[in-house]
């Protein structure tokens, strides 16, 4: 990382000489990142930061990076604007709630490129990128139903946005592909990072007899709590194997580096264009932590499922799928439209919960 002052000086010097040409090649790119949590949160934000470091390693001197961490979504516009103003060529804003603030800043800084994670709004200088995390959730469901003895898993959910609902549905769809009667208990903690509350939710679910725990919250507390009781669990966003060396089955890992390197390269080449992408396992934007603490046949089944998703033989949201209320959502062979998935607000059959509206 460069000290801010030198960067500022370099930026000023650049802006005096640079002709604003959209497709000019660049020799150096200053890539900036805005995180919603601490850069070392062991989860979501750290995954972005690891990718940032890989960008630096990959490009060497041609690219410098900077980041700001723990930026509250509600007051993120100032932080994003400071990044844009300080000479960044591209600003990656890495939380759903940064979407509108990023758009607002993008309009004021047409020469800076913006990349927003997990949203859907774009502008001529603002792209959106997201990962099909539900592909990993489906694999988790397959594993859960294969190793569970009670036929019930517990799911610690954060806040009711489509991405979280997609994950819950994918998990139960995967589980039902192994055991059609599998059921899922969902607890919402209405927070992304609250270790105590996440641990409480884990204890409550375990007390109610689930023997598999999965989470869509950021801390390792649920994996740790499950480990303390010898119950199997899935990590989230990051390999959480240290929190449950003998109990973590696998984890969905966010591996953004391939995408970041690709996008920074387009800026160096002068070929960057606005886009809206939703990438999956095959694109390397997410990957599965090693399949551990499970019998070999389950591991084989998990690998088989992963391969099928990668090759496109298996599409998570392909019919027949029934809604929670029993009505048909997708007919046999019908694939859900992306727009519908990005706004998904209902459960599929088998979830033992009422979705908060």
């Amino acid at each position, binding site marked *: 990382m460069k000290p801010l002052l030198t960067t500022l000086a370099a930026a000023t010097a650049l802006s005096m000489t640079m002709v604003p040409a959209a497709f000019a090649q660049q020799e150096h790119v200053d890539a900036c990142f805005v995180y919603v*949590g*601490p850069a*070392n*949160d*062991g989860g979501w934000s750290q995954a972005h930061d690891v990718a940032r470091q890989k960008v630096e390693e990959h490009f060497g001197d041609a690219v410098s990076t900077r980041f700001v961490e*723990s930026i509250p979504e509600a007051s993120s516009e100032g932080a994003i604007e400071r990044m844009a103003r300080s000479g960044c060529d591209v600003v990656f804003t890495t939380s759903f709630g940064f979407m509108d603030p990023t758009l607002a800043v993008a309009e004021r800084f047409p020469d800076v490129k913006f990349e927003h994670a997990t949203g859907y709004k774009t502008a001529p200088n603002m792209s959106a990128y997201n990962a099909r995390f539900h592909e990993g959730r489906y694999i988790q469901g397959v594993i859960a139903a294969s190793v569970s003895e009670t036929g019930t898993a*517990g799911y610690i959910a954060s806040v*009711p946005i489509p991405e979280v609902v997609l994950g819950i549905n994918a998990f139960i769809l995967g589980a039902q592909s192994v055991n059609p009667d599998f059921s899922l*208990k*969902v*607890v*919402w*903690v*209405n*927070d992304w*990072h*609250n*270790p*105590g*509350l*996440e*641990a*409480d*939710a884990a*204890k*409550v*679910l375990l*007390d*109610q007899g689930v023997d598999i725990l999965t989470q869509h919250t950021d*801390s*390792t*507390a649920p994996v*740790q*709590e499950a480990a*303390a009781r010898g119950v199997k669990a899935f990590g989230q966003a990051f390999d959480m194997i*240290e*929190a449950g060396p003998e109990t973590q089955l696998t984890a969905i890992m966010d591996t953004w580096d391939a995408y970041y390197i690709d996008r920074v390269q387009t800026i160096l080449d002068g070929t960057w264009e606005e886009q809206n992408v939703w990438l999956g396992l095959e694109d390397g934007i997410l990957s599965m932590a090693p399949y551990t603490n499970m019998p070999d046949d389950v591991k084989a089944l998990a690998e088989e499922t992963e391969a099928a998703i990668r090759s496109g033989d298996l599409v998570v949201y392909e019919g027949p799928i029934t809604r929670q209320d029993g009505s048909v959502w997708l007919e046999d062979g019908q694939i859900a439209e992306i727009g519908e998935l990005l706004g998904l607000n209902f459960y599929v059959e088998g979830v*033992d*919960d*009422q979705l*908060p*509206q």
Partner: protein
Amino acid sequence: MLESILLTIATAATPLLLAALGELVVERSGVLNLGVEGMMIMGAVGGFAGMILTGNPFIGVLVGVALGVALSLLFGFLVLTLATNQYATGLALTIFGLGLSGLLGESFIGRSSVRMPVLNIPGLSDLPVIGRLLFGQDIIFYLSILIVIGVTWFLFSTRQGLKLRAIGDNPQSAHALGIKVLRYRYLAVMFGGACAGLAGAHLSLVYTPQWTENMTAGRGWIALALVVFASWRPFRVLAGAYFFGAVSIGQLHAQALGLGIPSQLLSALPYLATILVLVIISQNRRLTLINTPASLGKSFVPDR
């Protein structure tokens, strides 16, 4: 299952109880310290760091308490010696504590820890339902109960307690009577820091044995509110903290049972229910007025 639920509630209530008890004593002396959250998070990072560095969770607890006291001394120096505004200084203390703990805790993130040992009395600890609740917990739980009793006894049965309450109501009169106002207030503020530090150590050593930034997640603010709604009475703080814990665990159970109640409403329930209950038990206006420290939040500068 009932036993496990009770244990979960006790674990959720203990940090709130401890932090609130400390703040109760501080406020009884007429000082309002809004920095509970900041002292608590320092206790959490100190507790975890102490445990990692020595391998001994009890030393961790001591380090957590020491950091809580250290931060409270900084607060005391500012608001008591320099007579700065208590509201602003307390808020600054919270922000400072959250930032500093993040810095200090940098290298402890992701480290796994030793669990705090729990009491085990053969026979008693194995009693059904209440065995582990009463005879199978960690030292911080027992300390929290002892502190409730100790604070009640101190405030209402000792001469020093009477003086502390007198200072909280009218520091000028207390000073005129020859009571060392600032000395009492310093000691009260330090006690508050120690309790908040202990509460933080409970979070990082017992509740969720790990360190992550901002792991207090607002519990310091809940503790502050508990003190007011419990009208500055220790046993009401105990009732409030356990009631809050019970409702927040209960709402998670209601969710897991799939009862179909909106989860946003359930998440708000612990706050709503606790305020309602404490307001109801504080119905006696006269009694509430007697218990409210009259000079709360006002600086006192001795004239000689």
